[in-house]
């Protein structure tokens, strides 16, 4: 059996025509996973579970036809809970944790007959931009195995890019879906904050986290978003705003769409090759009749600092529950309650997690709260209003996803600040709560993928997907003079 391409759209047609069945599809992916296990993109494989589900869904297709995601083979980032399956967050502290419940997104995917094939590797507790902080080892970029896949959803991105699953779910707190999608040459969407339920997503920074799809193409992304989006009575921060058909919206007319280019995003941080490529896309869009306007997001320079105060503050509190008392890792060598806490956490959290817990604890401490956390909330409001002002002038904002293409494994591990700057273009969307998508728009001289980011108004994922779909269909990535 040979799948024509790693996309759900094409497989779905084959399923509808009964030219293939789910068991064969799952078999295919399990063999691929077996062949390419050196990439280290998975933490837990769900072979038996996936095959059982495939049999059941084949039966259901015969009885009732296809549901919205029948036969979609999807990998799930290991910070999203699947009932009776290990959910580790790539941390030693949860290395033995079996979730007693399903995340809302899992329930929604499986209700539409998607098949979960594996839990993917990631940066520990989603803290990292390179997938090097995982307790289960570094994930390798399939385009160049000496390089990182990006992070924190590195395993999810690799799973899709290396054709080990049709799609994957990731989570994005400061760029954790978009940056690895960009490094691995695939599509990754961070929805509007509140678009997708966070129930069952192990929290890193609650006011920033969102679950989103990683796919090989925009249409698959739209299909999955359509299923996982929507109100959830288990998540108070999840919006009741109606979910449109994102797939149908792809065909909509885009006449009169204005694209904004923020001057702050084309600064000296940006690699020349990426800048050239983005400019090339912009020229193409102009030529296609879009109006393109320069805009300013004046508080951009504060975004990274702001993010690392808010995200670490929330993380320091969210990670307090890992204390060795009820589940997860507990140190053997303890004489007292304090020692149980200290030893368990010292032994089972990695360096980056510890660094962020300490930062977060510090900024929330009495005497420092006003200077850091409260001020950071004010800056966040300014960043939000930057975007609101910008969207008076344009319908969406186009930027590079990352200032660099995939860097070498080990390159930035000794310099956290340099690592943090990797998210300079992605973090603002999380702070503002707006949706953003990264799509591949070609490669650099090292044959490494370059990602383009489109940001949009809150709950206007349709416009992002439409423009991304247009670029995917019509922009020729080869057509550039080097």
């Amino acid at each position, binding site marked *: 059996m040979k799948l024509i391409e790693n996309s759900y759209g094409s497989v779905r047609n084959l399923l509808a025509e009964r030219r293939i069945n789910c068991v064969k599809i799952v078999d295919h992916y399990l063999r691929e996973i077996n062949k390419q296990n050196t990439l280290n993109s998975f933490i837990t494989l769900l072979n038996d579970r996936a095959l059982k589900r495939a049999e059941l869904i084949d039966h259901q297709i015969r009885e009732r036809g296809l549901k919205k995601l029948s036969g979609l083979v999807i990998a799930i980032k290991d*910070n*999203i*809970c699947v009932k009776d399956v290990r*959910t580790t*967050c790539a941390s030693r502290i*949860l290395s033995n*944790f079996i*979730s*007693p*419940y399903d*995340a809302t997104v899992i329930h929604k995917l499986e209700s539409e007959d998607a098949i979960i094939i594996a839990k993917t590797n990631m940066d520990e507790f989603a803290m990292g931009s390179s997938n090097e902080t995982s307790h289960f080892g570094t994930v390798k970029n399939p385009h160049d195995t000496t390089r990182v896949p990006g992070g924190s959803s590195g395993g999810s991105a690799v799973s899709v890019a290396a054709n080990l699953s049709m799609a994957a779910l990731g989570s994005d707190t400061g760029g954790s879906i978009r940056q690895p999608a960009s490094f691995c040459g695939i599509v990754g969407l961070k929805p509007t904050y509140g678009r997708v339920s*966070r*129930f*069952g*997503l*192990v*929290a890193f*920074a*609650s*006011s920033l986290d969102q679950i989103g799809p990683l796919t090989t193409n925009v249409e698959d992304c739209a299909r999955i978003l359509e299923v996982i989006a929507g109100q959830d*009575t*288990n*998540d*108070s*921060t999840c919006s009741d705003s109606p979910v449109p058909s994102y797939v149908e919206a792809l065909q909509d007319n885009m006449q009169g769409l204005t694209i904004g280019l923020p001057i702050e995003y084309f600064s000296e941080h940006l690699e020349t090759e990426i800048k050239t490529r983005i400019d090339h896309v912009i020229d193409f869009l102009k030529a296609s009749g879009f109006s393109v306007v320069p805009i300013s997001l004046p508080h951009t320079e504060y975004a990274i600092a702001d993010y690392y105060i808010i995200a670490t*503050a*929330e993380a*320091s*509190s969210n*990670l*307090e*529950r890992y*204390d060795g*008392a*009820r*589940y997860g890792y507990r140190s053997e060598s303890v004489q007292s*309650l304090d020692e149980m*806490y200290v030893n368990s956490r010292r032994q089972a959290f990695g360096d980056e997690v510890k660094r962020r817990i300490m930062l977060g*604890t510090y900024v*929330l*401490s*009495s005497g420092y*709260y006003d200077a850091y*956390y409260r001020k950071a909330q004010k800056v966040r409001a300014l960043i939000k209003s930057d975007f609101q002002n910008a969207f008076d002038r344009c319908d969406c904002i186009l930027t590079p996803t990352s200032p660099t293409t995939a860097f070498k494994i080990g390159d930035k591990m000794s310099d956290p600040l340099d690592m943090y700057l990797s998210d300079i273009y992605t973090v603002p969307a999380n702070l503002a709560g707006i949706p953003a998508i990264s799509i591949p728009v070609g490669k650099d001289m090292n044959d490494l993928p370059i990602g383009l980011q489109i940001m949009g108004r809150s709950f206007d994922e349709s416009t992002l997907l439409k423009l991304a779909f247009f670029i995917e269909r019509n922009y020729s990535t080869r057509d550039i003079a080097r």
Partner: protein
Amino acid sequence: MNTMYEPVIGLEIHIQLLTNSKLFCHCSTCFGAPQNTQVCPVCLGMPGVLPVLNERAIEFGIRLALATHCSIAERSIFARKNYFYPDLPKGYQISQFEDPLCSNGFIEVNDTESTHRIRITRIHIEEDAGKSIHAEEYVDADQTLIDLNRCGVPLLELVTEPDIRSPQEAYLFLTKLKQLVQYLDICDGNMEQGSLRCDANISIRPLHSKTLGIKTELKNMNSFKGVEKALEFEFNRQVQEIQNGNRIKQVTLMWDDKLNCVVPMRSKEMAHDYRYFPDPDLVPVIIRHSTIDTIQKKLPELPEDKLKRFMEDYKLPQYDAEVLTESKEIADYFEAVAKEIKDYKSVSNWIMGDVLRSLNEGKITINEFAIEPGRLSELLHLIEKKVINLTIAKTLFTKMMSDKRAPSELVTQLGLSQVSDTTEISALIDKILGQHQKEVADYLSGKVKIFGFLVGQIMRESKGRANPQVVNEILKDKLEKQRESNWGCIKS
């Protein structure tokens, strides 16, 4: 108490709410279930779970705010209070810090002479923690068990201004608050079971001074009386310290109810920085005027209003009305009986006397009392219709506490009904007079007090069933007749 100094006292009270489910999940709040059976991933603090607010708790908070003249915030927010403890699964308690639900209210307490207004700083909503069990019957000395049934149960925390001026006043305040929350039907008010928990802070100052001294905090009091005793102890201790020329240190003290003294907490346990910040998992609580109006309209009758109504509608003396309305349950009990029996004062007497005495002796609440209002009304009916007299009624009352049958049935079965038949009573009297000729003679010679003795003997002979009025009449009649016949003897 030392009269050169006065105490300055503030209280911090946790009020456990009677909602059916917990504050942020659907688990039951029922007390006394087997350990760790009323839990779910949310209240266990499993990875990935999120809290969803139980709106009922907000409604309860608004009820207390309305009854204590607090202002209710249009927008209030939940905050995380971070600290590590094994009975706190998330590592933080969801509480309110900045922007609490209610603020700036008061409760008035009355002592014999005057009314004193105690201001309320704030009332906020928070979740309870679980319980750590160190009991030796379950575990080795170095082990602790955790029961998380209580974890996530909604609480209101009420903080007063330091307006309380004596341990007795603290006691009165707590009694008043307990009465209020019971009337509002938001808390069962049971301090022994932990439904009401009180911490106190106290400082002292020379009488008539306006400055505030250094305060200490008192914890671990398990009853209202315990609060009063602990405050008395601590007041005297502080006076002693000052008089010895020492300074008061700002510490937290644990009250030891058995030893009747305070023990300082380890300083390490006090050195908390809770790192409060707004909980990003919850949205602000927005309360509209219309919501407050609706709750106001449905607000149960408050103690003061009930007291007034009892005096007006039932024409009860103030003392009776106060005793009966002290607890809502007793007041309800009274009204249920008063629906059937129109002699309200007699209903009041029965409840204030026999009923309350039985409750005290049995250490039970009115809801656990064996004689329901229906059966008490029936008993009073039997008296009204003169089926039984008061003496029999008391016997019957005692019987009814152990026998759940209707009083009329018991009267028949035990043959307790009153005898008013004159021939029967007449025969009884003749019998007694025959046995007590000396006393009769004494009576006739002018010792009128003997009459009572004779009535007593007759009643006893009838096992209390004889109608005393009839006995009186016939006895008088017979004695007079005897006097006349004696005169006759002398004459002849």
